[in-house]
C-alpha cells in the first residue's frame, strides 16, 4: 500500500474545508476576537483582556440558566426515554396498522420548531386555548403558563415530550424490529415472562439505538431555543430562560457583543465536550453492537 497515493484523496476534502472555514471557523475566530474587547460600534473597540469572561462567570443569571438547562435536559431524558420504549413496545408488529402508526408518530417531527411553539402557545392559553380553557373553566384548576413558573415548565415539558418522544419511539421500534424471531421462540420455550423477555432480550438488543436516542435527545434539548422562545419567551421572570435564550438576550437585545462572545465560547466548550463524549459513546456502540 502506497501511503502517498492514499493521501492524495485528502485534496478532495478542500471544498468542504473552504465551506467550513467560511461558515464556522472564521466566525468562531471573530467571536474569540470579540470576547476580549468591549465593542461600541464599527471601529470603536477597546481591549479588555479577560474582563468579559470574568463578568460572565460571576453572572448568577448565567449560572441559573445553566442549571435550568441541565434540569430541563435531565427531565426530558427521564420522561422521553421510558415513554418512547413503552410506545415502541405497544406499537403493532404487522399489517397496515404499522404504516399508520409510523405516520401518526412521525407527524410532530415534521412540524417546524417555531410553529410548534405557536401551536402550544395557543393550545394552552387560559382564555381561548382548548387545553388551557378546559383546565381552567371545566376542571376549575388555575393554569396559566404566562404567569406561573410551574405552569410554564409543565407546558414546556408537555410540548417537548409531544414533539420528541416519537423520535425515541421510532428508534426503539427500529431496534425491536431488528431482533430475530428465534430469540422470542427460545424465550417462549423457556417459559420466560414478558418482563424477562424485555429485560434479557429486547433491552440489550436495543442498547445501540437507545444510546443514539439518548445522546441525540440530550444534545437537542441542551441547545433548545425556538420552542421555549416562542412559547414563553424565557418567562415568567427568568424561569424558562435557557442558555441559548439568555445568550440571544445579551447579544441581540442588549448588544453586549463582548459579553455575549465570552458566553458563547463557554457554551461552545460545554457543547464541544458533550459532542466528544457523544462521538466516543457512538464509537463504542458500533464496536459492541454484535457481541
Amino acid at each position, binding site marked *: 500500500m502506497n*501511503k502517498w497515493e492514499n*493521501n492524495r484523496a485528502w485534496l478532495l476534502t478542500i471544498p468542504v474545508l473552504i465551506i467550513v472555514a467560511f461558515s464556522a471557523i*472564521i466566525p468562531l*475566530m*471573530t467571536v*474569540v*476576537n*470579540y470576547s*476580549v*474587547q468591549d*465593542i461600541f460600534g*464599527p*471601529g470603536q*473597540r477597546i*481591549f479588555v*483582556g*479577560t474582563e468579559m*469572561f*470574568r463578568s460572565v*462567570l*460571576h453572572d448568577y443569571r448565567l449560572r441559573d440558566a445553566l442549571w435550568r438547562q441541565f434540569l430541563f435536559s435531565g427531565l426530558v431524558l427521564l420522561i422521553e426515554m421510558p415513554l418512547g420504549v413503552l410506545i415502541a413496545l405497544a406499537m403493532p408488529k404487522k399489517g397496515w396498522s404499522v404504516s399508520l402508526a409510523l405516520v401518526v408518530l412521525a407527524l410532530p417531527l415534521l412540524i417546524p420548531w417555531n410553529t410548534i411553539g405557536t401551536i402550544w402557545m395557543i393550545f394552552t392559553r387560559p382564555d381561548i386555548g382548548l387545553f388551557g380553557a378546559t383546565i381552567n373553566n371545566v376542571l376549575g384548576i388555575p393554569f396559566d403558563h404566562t404567569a406561573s413558573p410551574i405552569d410554564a415548565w409543565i407546558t414546556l415539558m408537555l410540548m417537548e415530550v409531544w414533539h420528541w418522544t416519537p423520535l425515541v419511539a421510532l428508534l426503539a421500534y427500529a431496534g425491536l424490529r431488528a431482533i430475530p424471531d428465534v430469540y422470542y421462540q427460545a424465550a417462549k420455550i423457556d417459559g420466560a415472562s414478558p418482563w424477562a423477555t424485555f429485560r434479557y432480550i429486547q433491552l440489550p438488543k436495543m442498547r445501540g439505538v437507545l444510546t443514539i436516542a439518548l445522546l441525540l435527545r440530550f444534545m437537542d434539548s441542551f441547545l433548545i431555543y425556538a420552542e421555549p422562545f416562542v412559547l414563553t419567551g424565557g418567562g415568567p421572570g427568568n424561569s424558562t430562560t435557557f442558555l441559548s435564550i439568555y445568550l440571544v438576550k445579551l447579544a441581540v437585545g442588549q448588544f453586549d457583543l463582548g459579553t455575549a462572545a465570552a458566553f458563547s465560547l*463557554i457554551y461552545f*466548550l460545554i457543547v*464541544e*465536550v458533550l459532542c*466528544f463524549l457523544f462521538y*466516543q459513546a457512538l464509537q463504542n456502540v458500533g464496536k459492541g453492537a454484535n457481541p
Partner: protein
Amino acid sequence: MNMEWMAWTLPTAIFFIVIFLIVTAMTIWQTVSPSVGRRGFLPLTTTPGDRLFIGLICAAFIHIAWIGLTDLSLWIVFPLAVAWVIVVMIWG
C-alpha cells in the same frame, strides 16, 4: 483586504497563530510517521491528535475555572495548563 470586521487584537492573533502552528506541525508529523491509537491513563484509546484535542479543551477549562474561582493573573495558571497539555500528549 479589510480585516476590521473580524476585530483582530494582538493577543488573539498570537493565540490563533500558535494553534495553527501546532496543528500544522501535528499534520506534518502524522504524514511523516502515521500514528496508531494507544491506551494511556485516559480511559480510551487515543491518537496524538485526540490527545492534543483533549489537552487543549482541558486547558481551556482550566483557564475558565481560574477566572471564575480566583482574581489572580492568568499567567500563574498558564504554565500549569501547558504542562497539563504536555502530560496528556505524552502519557494520556
